[in-house]
């Protein structure tokens, strides 16, 4: 009798737990942020942004009543640590959506995400490899690629001074070199002359050779890629000493308040492209919302960077994909998540960007800003430019 009762109890428990196992996995986001290491300035802001969007969404009812679960780990901006964290988070939580810390990690995991993990994935990267839906439908970037950002700047230059002499000044690593071949082709198509290509280490201080080379080649515009602040600030300051009268421009990661602070009175010399509006653009509904939230939850924080905006927008897109996939048959399956994401068209993000339409798993839109030495902010000097 005892044996039979035990068997029945075991059967009930087994069926019960099987039932639990079969029930849909709640909407789960996992992320590997570079919370320490050289990219920590982005990781700290990015992890905060993701948490804020998750908290805002959950406070408003979640995904049709289901609370979003969010877990993250520090990747130290090292590939092997980041990949280990990715695998650990996936093994523990089986998320439908993941966020990575770098271009290197994205490239390393791309084939496995496609064949094995099948999670909707984005990262702190704007590499073209992450915006190739034919090769990998699960990877996307919530911004224009670096090549598209170059395109935005070159379009702006072509409009301002047709036939200008351009220099590409880039960092000697993957992040720096990635858009250069595409940049050369686009410049040629727009009738611009790439007369110089200067390379430097991040944080380089002795840039005399590069500056004099650009001066000798009569460079009109110098576009930086792969740096955050140094040596951009150093080049701009030293160019005044050497009589180089070029205009200086840069892409997303350098178009940050940190650079303006370093430039000081020369902030107006720098023009950059960014995919997002800035925290101090109070007239935008989403910025008002972010400011109110930050004031309520983190009253000591006065500013949110562009890295915050990147993660904020990416998480908004994750949430929107969850909402759309939840209405599909099967719920949060990998195919549904991809379909849901790719179906996003004219999605209003409250001015953070123009209404978002996903194209080839990226958002090929950017805006040109100029630094303002008086306000220590970036002022928009163009409208939103689409690169498709």
């Amino acid at each position: 009798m005892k044996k039979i009762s035990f068997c029945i109890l075991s059967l009930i428990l087994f069926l019960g737990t099987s039932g639990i196992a079969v029930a849909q996995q709640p909407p789960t986001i996992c992320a590997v942020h570079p919370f320490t290491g050289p990219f920590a300035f982005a990781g700290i802001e990015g992890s905060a942004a993701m948490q804020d969007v998750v908290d805002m969404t959950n406070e408003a009812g979640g995904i049709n009543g289901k609370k979003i679960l969010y877990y993250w780990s520090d990747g130290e901006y090292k590939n092997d640590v980041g990949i280990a964290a990715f695998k650990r988070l996936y093994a523990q939580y089986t998320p439908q959506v993941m966020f990575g810390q770098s271009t290197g990690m994205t490239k390393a995991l791309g084939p496995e995400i496609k064949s094995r993990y099948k999670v909707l994935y984005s990262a702190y990267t704007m590499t073209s490899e992450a915006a190739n839906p034919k090769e990998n439908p699960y990877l996307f970037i919530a911004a224009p690629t670096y090549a598209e950002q170059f395109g935005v700047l070159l379009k702006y230059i072509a409009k301002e001074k047709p036939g200008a002499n351009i220099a590409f000044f880039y960092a000697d690593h993957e992040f720096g070199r990635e858009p250069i071949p595409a940049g050369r082709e686009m410049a040629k198509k727009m009738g611009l002359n790439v007369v110089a290509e200067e390379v430097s280490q991040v944080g380089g201080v002795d840039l005399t050779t590069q500056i004099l080379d650009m001066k000798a080649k009569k460079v009109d515009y110098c576009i930086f890629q792969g740096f955050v602040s140094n040596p951009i600030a150093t080049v701009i300051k030293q160019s005044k000493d050497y009589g180089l009268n070029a205009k200086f421009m840069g892409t997303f990661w350098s178009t940050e308040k940190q650079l303006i602070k370093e430039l000081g009175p020369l902030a107006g010399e720098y023009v950059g492209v960014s995919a997002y509006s800035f925290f101090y653009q109070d007239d935008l509904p989403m910025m008002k919302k972010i400011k109110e939230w930050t004031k309520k939850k983190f009253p000591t924080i006065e500013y949110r960077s562009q890295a915050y905006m990147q993660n904020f927008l990416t998480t908004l897109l994750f949430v929107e994909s969850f909402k759309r996939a939840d209405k599909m048959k099967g719920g949060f399956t990998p195919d549904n998540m991809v379909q849901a994401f790719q179906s996003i068209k004219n999605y209003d993000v409250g001015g953070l960007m123009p209404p978002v339409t996903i194209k080839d798993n990226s958002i090929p839109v950017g805006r040109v800003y100029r630094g303002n030495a008086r306000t220590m902010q970036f002022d928009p000097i163009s409208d939103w430019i689409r690169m498709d």
Partner: protein
Amino acid sequence: MRCGDFKENYIDDEEIFPSRFVKFWLVLFLIFLITFPFMANAHLLYIANMIGFAVIGAVGLNLLAGFTGQISLGHAAFIGVGAYTSAILVTRYGISFWLSLPLSGLVSALAGMVIGIPSLRVKGLYLCIATLAAQFIFGFTFVHWESMTKGITGIHIPPPAIGGFQFDTEKNFYWITLLFVILGVGYARNLVRSKMGRAFVAIRDRDLAAEIMGINLFRYKLSAFAISSFYAGVAGALWVSFLKVVTPEHFPFMLCIQYLAMVIVGGLGSVIGSIFGAVFMTLIPEILNVLSDMVKSYSPGMGKLIIPFKQVVFGSLIVGFLIFEPRGLAEIWSRIKKFFTLWPFSY
């Protein structure tokens, strides 16, 4: 428990597994290694594979730095040479992984021999700087020789296969890693008790006296560089075949420092020290990550403080080990074994 185990001749003294007690525990350990993939998840298997690659690389570096006394700051470069050789042979020339692996080792060995030539003239810190040149030369080549290496884009590598069976998951690749770790460690352990191994040690301890005794410094120093670089090349080829991608970013200068730290913390001049060092340097950061995640989940606001603190903890552990046991983890292990050799009759 083994007790009062005394050797009566040099041959017995050089035995790698001197008693049945040791052989028993080794067999148990092997059984654990074989059954591990059936118990572990993808994350643990990933860590196990990374430890395996680190062990192979660290054993190679220890043969050069620990046994021969030639400090090298170019180990990451040789790992990169092996990695790229394997990637290019597999993707460009269609050569099987199983053939490309030893070829990668040979190409790295050749590169190592060329870079090792200054060792005939310079020693110590000067040799360090000379080998550092390898890091920068090869790093530059990986980025700029785009026709071969595809520059910063990198090369995507198909997983190794035998017939229709692909080694494309952590579990499947684990068997390859385990095989080459056993082969690599076994060869190194035998090498150090052979004539060549004794020559290496003689060169390390007093190269002038070694030369007077008849040891050909030119031959043995270059051999040390070649063997060390062969190990590095094999480790690199395995690593990138596991990751299925190779880019120049995989081989920064910090990787050289990491490998040097493995052999120093593990114990210079000890094969088992290389294993301990590789396990320590790979596992401890991962354990600290897991612990910091746990603390963060209980106290989210402390994340900003706790997470960077793990770097402090890791650095302190390394410094602590070196202060209390400068000869590394191998020496701690050796003292534990010696204690139990005569236990309980140590008096």
